[in-house]
């Protein structure tokens, strides 16, 4: 039995005005376990706290009940007081007789009665309290960044700058991501490569950063501070450390008809390739689905021309194990497929392109060396129609489009239209829009410049149909302001396709037990106050994997995620919340019910040896809760059919005792 001390607070007249505090402390004196009971004007004041400390010493108290304001207000205060008096801080219970009693009831008698009952419940609970010690776990001082786009690059650089080692895993042969494919960036029109490639070089040269390119994460185990990750390094058939990136192999490779994914299939590359000139790492990669040597053993030209002897046709996929303290997800986005939008004739005409393809067409390093030429016949287009919101804000049919606004299309379309009018002033440029959304610094000014200075024709309306006819594209559209239907003979149609999270994000979320929304964007721990953390401890979000974002927003979120990671890695040990679930292994029958309801993947199963009454041993499968991962929701305690699972601080017998005390 505990020796409980009860302290009833007046809170000035806040409590004492509606509750007879003397009656409460007198009534609670007779409760089982209570050896001391008193009341005081302000329990949370220094004098009040000293009163508690003195009483602990004087009466040898092992438990404390404070009848005062909400535990959300002063539970931490009184726990510190208990700790200062030499008690375990978790031996304190609060009876909320202010917010939930004196402030909501006007009658002194009912208020006092209720306060006594609430006090009794707290006493009943504290009698069953056990001292709790928060668990500690070490922190592996290394971070993993999944995805090597601008989000991943910025996060990695910021973490590395703070002195912590970082690994970047990128599934493409080079880092750089979507930004490397862009031409200019809004609203300042800097060239994307000019601002991105120096950062890529920084990454390559930073001693704290390792790049695993052409690699994927294949397994993640563990928890915050202690993740065990398996990285699959796909065979690129080129020894990374020897290859100098001279490009002789690329030139000599006879297989040159492979669609170039970096230019979105608008030109071809060879079977051995370096995606673009400033690739990091600048190492060649052999595409096994195209290489004759790998397919049927006939060729081997690249290995003959390679002066460094870097080609290795026998290379195998390699698995690397590494430990990390924190994981940053930066898996980014892709434009959605245009296959289902028949009305825009994307699959019928080469001259209907997506905005990302348009970026490559205007990029000086792109398939046309920056000259705006139609993909079909290489002629320069005289009339260009841009269509916004293709697949965005579309809730009519889920497999076709996305319900959300893709956020970046308004601005890049304004940029494209402006660039065209700037370089080719004799071109007619139409932009069909539903709304032009330009929230952002200098964004609206940019859009207005496109209209006022560059003469882009913005039409409020939508394109209904694109029909290829001869070498023209017949565009049928509405102009809602002039209330008429337009028929435009266009040379090029550019679709601002909605963006969606990368396909690799969903399996990754499963591995991380990180939650996602219905659109497969990662969910943040709190939409406003914790926007870069996943609800899963130790997992952080950077860039468009969390939601559509432009570059400035991505970079600021990447920095924010990095600062959270640094904050975590700077700690030597993590102190957990002791109010976590634990399983009584003697009662556990290994049914997996708890594991299935756990939102954090905190429960695993172990085969344990048990001594039986007849002195034999038996191996049984039992649940084990990882206290560093468990957040203490208690879903498992209810799911457990045998009652083996219980929650520290809110144990079943404690809550039951509270129920009994209230219903007495």
């Amino acid at each position, binding site marked *: 039995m505990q020796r409980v001390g009860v302290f009833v607070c007046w809170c000035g007249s806040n409590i004492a005005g509606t509750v007879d505090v003397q009656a409460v402390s007198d009534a609670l004196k007779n409760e089982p376990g209570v050896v001391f009971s008193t009341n005081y004007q302000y329990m949370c004041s220094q004098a009040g706290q000293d009163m508690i400390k003195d009483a602990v010493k004087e009466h040898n108290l092992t438990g404390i009940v404070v009848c005062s304001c909400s535990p959300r207000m002063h539970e931490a205060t009184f726990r510190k007081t208990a700790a200062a008096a030499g008690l375990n801080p978790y031996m304190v219970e609060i009876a909320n007789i202010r917010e939930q009693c004196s402030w909501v009831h006007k009658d002194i008698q009912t208020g006092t009665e209720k306060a006594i009952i609430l006090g009794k419940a707290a006493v009943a609970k504290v009698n069953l309290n056990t001292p709790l010690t928060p668990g500690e776990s070490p922190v592996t001082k290394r971070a993993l960044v999944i995805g090597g786009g601008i989000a991943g690059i910025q996060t990695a650089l910021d973490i590395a700058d703070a002195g912590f080692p970082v690994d970047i895993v990128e599934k493409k042969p080079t880092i750089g991501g979507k930004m490397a494919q862009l031409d200019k960036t809004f609203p300042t029109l800097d060239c994307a490569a000019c601002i991105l490639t120096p950062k890529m070089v920084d990454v390559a040269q930073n001693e704290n950063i390792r790049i695993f390119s052409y690699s994927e994460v294949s397994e993640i185990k563990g928890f915050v501070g202690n993740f065990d990750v398996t990285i699959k390094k796909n065979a690129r058939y080129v020894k990374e450390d020897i290859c100098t990136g001279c490009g002789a192999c690329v030139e000599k490779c006879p297989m040159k008809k492979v669609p170039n994914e970096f230019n979105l299939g608008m030109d071809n590359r060879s079977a051995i390739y370096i995606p673009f000139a400033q690739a990091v790492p600048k190492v060649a990669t052999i595409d096994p689905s195209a290489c004759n040597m790998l397919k049927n053993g006939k060729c081997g030209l690249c290995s003959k021309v390679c002066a460094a002897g870097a080609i290795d046709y026998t290379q195998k996929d390699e698995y690397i194990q590494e430990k990390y303290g924190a994981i940053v997800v930066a898996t980014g986005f892709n434009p959605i497929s245009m296959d289902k939008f028949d*009305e825009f004739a994307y699959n019928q005409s080469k001259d209907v392109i997506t905005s990302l393809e348009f970026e490559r067409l205007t990029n000086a390093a792109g398939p046309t060396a920056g000259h705006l030429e139609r993909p079909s016949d290489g002629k320069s287009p005289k009339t260009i129609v841009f269509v916004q*919101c293709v697949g965005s*804000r*579309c*809730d*009519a*049919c889920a497999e076709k*489009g996305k319900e959300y606004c893709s956020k970046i299309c308004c601005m890049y379309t304004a940029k494209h239209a402006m660039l065209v009018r700037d370089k080719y002033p004799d071109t007619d440029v139409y932009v069909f829009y*539903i709304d032009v959304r330009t929230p952002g610094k200098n964004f609206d000014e940019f859009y207005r410049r496109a209209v006022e200075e560059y003469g882009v024709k913005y039409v*409020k*309306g*939508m*394109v*209904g*149909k694109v029909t290829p006819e001869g070498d023209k594209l017949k565009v*049928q*559209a*509405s*102009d*809602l302001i002039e*209330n008429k*239907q337009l028929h435009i003979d266009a040379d090029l149609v550019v679709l601002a396709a909605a963006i969606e999270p990368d396909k690799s994000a969903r399996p990754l979320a499963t591995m991380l037990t990180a939650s996602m929304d219905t659109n497969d964007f990662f969910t943040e721990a709190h939409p406003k106050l914790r926007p870069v953390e996943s609800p899963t401890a130790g997992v952080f979000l950077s860039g468009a994997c969390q939601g559509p974002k432009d570059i400035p927003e991505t970079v600021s979120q990447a920095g924010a995620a990095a600062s959270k990671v640094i904050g975590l890695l700077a700690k030597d040990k993590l102190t957990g919340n002791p109010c976590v679930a634990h399983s009584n292994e003697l009662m556990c029958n290994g049914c997996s019910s708890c594991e299935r309801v756990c939102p954090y993947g905190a429960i695993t199963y172990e085969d344990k040896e048990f001594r039986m009454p007849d002195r034999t041993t038996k191996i049984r499968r039992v649940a084990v809760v990882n206290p560093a991962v468990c957040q203490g929701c208690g879903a498992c305690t209810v799911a457990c059919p045998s009652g083996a699972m219980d929650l520290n601080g809110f144990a079943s017998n404690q809550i039951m005792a509270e129920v009994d005390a209230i219903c007495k």
Partner: protein
Amino acid sequence: MNNKYLREELIRESGVNPKKCMKCGKCSATCPAYDEMEYHPHQFVSMVESGDIQPLLQSESLYKCLSCFACIERCPRGVEPAKLVEAVRLAAIRKQGENRMTANDVAEFLDEDVPQQLIVSAFRKYSK
């Protein structure tokens, strides 16, 4: 007739929720009978929503709509303007108290080039 009542009846009858419309105008962009119509598909949605229904009831646009359902197919929000046009058309025919087309009218339309299907569908469209 009370516009509020009529508005609700049209919405109920057609099963269309005009509030879902985001006013992109894709229905009118895609409409093949656009130039024939005084009021266009997007205006039907907007005018029914605001209760401005009398002009629609009197408009020839009701009978110019081809019922091709292109607007239903293309609408990104699933608003289905053609169903609303159909509902207004039925309301107009009901109000008139008689069919717009009777069996006696058929003779003047008959022509070697007119497909039989057109006559059948016209009957469906212009009579109760």
